[in-house]
């Protein structure tokens, strides 16, 4: 581990620590009510006291986000391939995609709940809907941005369309696909929480809402922190997958961008 690596790990932690300290001092110095804004220590105590509940409620939210994201990837990438390679499909599908993207997902959520019920499925669908768009757009952009020199090289060898796709276009698009996946995975968590807010029996969003309605702000904040951690962990998982899939791009390019 070089000094540079150390710095990239330490500086963000210092930033977080500074905010936590100022927050705690502010709450203590001005005697802010724990209902309005609980201090970090208060939230930590609530986390400890409600550990089993938090763990239990994390699982459904985790599943909803991950499955929604996985579905968005599984459907989004093939759709992007169609959009990028066929002018007809591009003209047919793109306006539809943009139309669905401009519908506010919070507004659609109640309808989806009617269709899919209060369980996992409805949250999965909402997470899928919000994660789908960035995957399609970034993948299609990446596929279209294949360097012309590489396409020309493949053409000069009379490569088949399938060969061009598998050996040139797709690998060239990977950085774009992962950029889309990074955005999509954090959006998937948001989608899952939207679904839980509108109607659910469990999950961190449900816990947050319940705690809030009982004015148990420390627990609500604990759930909020947990949700952010879930988002960060999923984001980091995509970054790890990116590094494993693309060992050729050096670690220097892997700031959390």
């Amino acid at each position, binding site marked *: 581990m070089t000094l540079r690596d150390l710095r990239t790990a330490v500086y963000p932690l210092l930033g977080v620590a500074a905010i936590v300290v100022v927050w705690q001092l502010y709450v203590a110095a001005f005697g802010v009510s724990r209902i309005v804004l609980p201090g970090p220590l208060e939230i930590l105590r609530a986390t400890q006291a409600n550990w089993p509940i938090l763990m239990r409620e994390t699982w459904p939210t985790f599943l909803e986000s991950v499955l929604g994201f996985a579905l968005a990837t599984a459907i989004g990438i093939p759709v992007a391939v169609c959009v990028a390679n066929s002018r007809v499909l591009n003209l047919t599908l793109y306006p539809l995609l943009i139309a669905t993207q401009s519908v506010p997902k919070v507004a659609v959520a109640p309808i989806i709940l009617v269709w899919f019920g209060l369980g996992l499925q409805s949250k999965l669908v909402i997470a899928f809907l919000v994660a789908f768009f960035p995957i399609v757009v970034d993948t299609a952009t990446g596929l279209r941005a294949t360097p012309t020199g590489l396409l020309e090289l*493949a*053409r*000069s060898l009379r490569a088949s369309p399938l060969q061009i796709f598998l050996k040139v276009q797709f690998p060239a698009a990977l950085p774009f696909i992962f950029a889309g996946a990074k955005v999509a995975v954090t959006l998937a968590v948001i989608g899952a929480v939207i679904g839980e807010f509108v109607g659910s029996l469990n999950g961190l969003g449900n816990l947050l809402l319940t705690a809030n309605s009982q004015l148990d702000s420390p627990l609500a904040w604990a759930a909020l922190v947990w949700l952010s951690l879930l988002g960060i962990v999923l984001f980091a998982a995509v970054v790890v997958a990116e590094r494993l899939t693309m060992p050729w791009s050096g670690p220097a390019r892997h700031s959390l961008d």
Partner: protein
Amino acid sequence: MTAFGHFKDVHQSFARTGQAPLVAIENISFDLPAGRLATLLGPSGCGKTTFLRIVAGLMSASRGTVRINGRDVTEPHPDFGIVFQQANLMPWRTVLNNVLFPMEILRRRDARAVARAKELLGLVGLAGFEAAYPAELSGGMQQRVALCRALVHRPKLLLMDEPFGALDELTRMEMQDLLLDIRAKTGATVLFVTHSIAEAVYISDVVVVFSKRPAVVADFIPVVLPYPRAAEIRYAAEFTALEHRAGRALGITR
């Protein structure tokens, strides 16, 4: 019996909306015997790259005959190897896998192909870099990899489009020697596009000088310098005389 490469009355024009068509190549005719290295020398934008793309089959001529090895060129042919101005390496492939790319496309990637790729890499001084990624290489090294990639499937014709244009002067001279060396070892016929007079004279058997657009053959200069050529020859009187003749054909000296 016509020559290996036979180009007769090649003409290329591009349609433009609302204007007269842009004539890139007016009329190009010359023969390229097998095993020879011909350079196409001309000012930028004169259509020499267009001509090379026509020979490569990446573009078809408006009219005229382009015949390689007795066959009219209508589309790319696996018997050709191409080196572009940019190395065009795939960042996700190692050096060895970049060189083997044509063999994969031609479905001939086997132990012999790998051995051939390694041999070529050794020839250009890149032994030991097989597992490196392009991002770890300098521009000159990347262009060497591109040269190996163009040669790996033993093409009969090597097409080079200003391959050393993006390199610094010293690397460029090194690459010219390397090309002469490789060519002596492989016996490939080479068509080489450049806008450097010195480069054209140094590496060629024959320099085909293109005029300004619309291009015609302004001069056809046989280069009678002996092989193997080394840097000293750049200062010889014959060398300078050839440079002078090319300069006259280009209209920059009298």
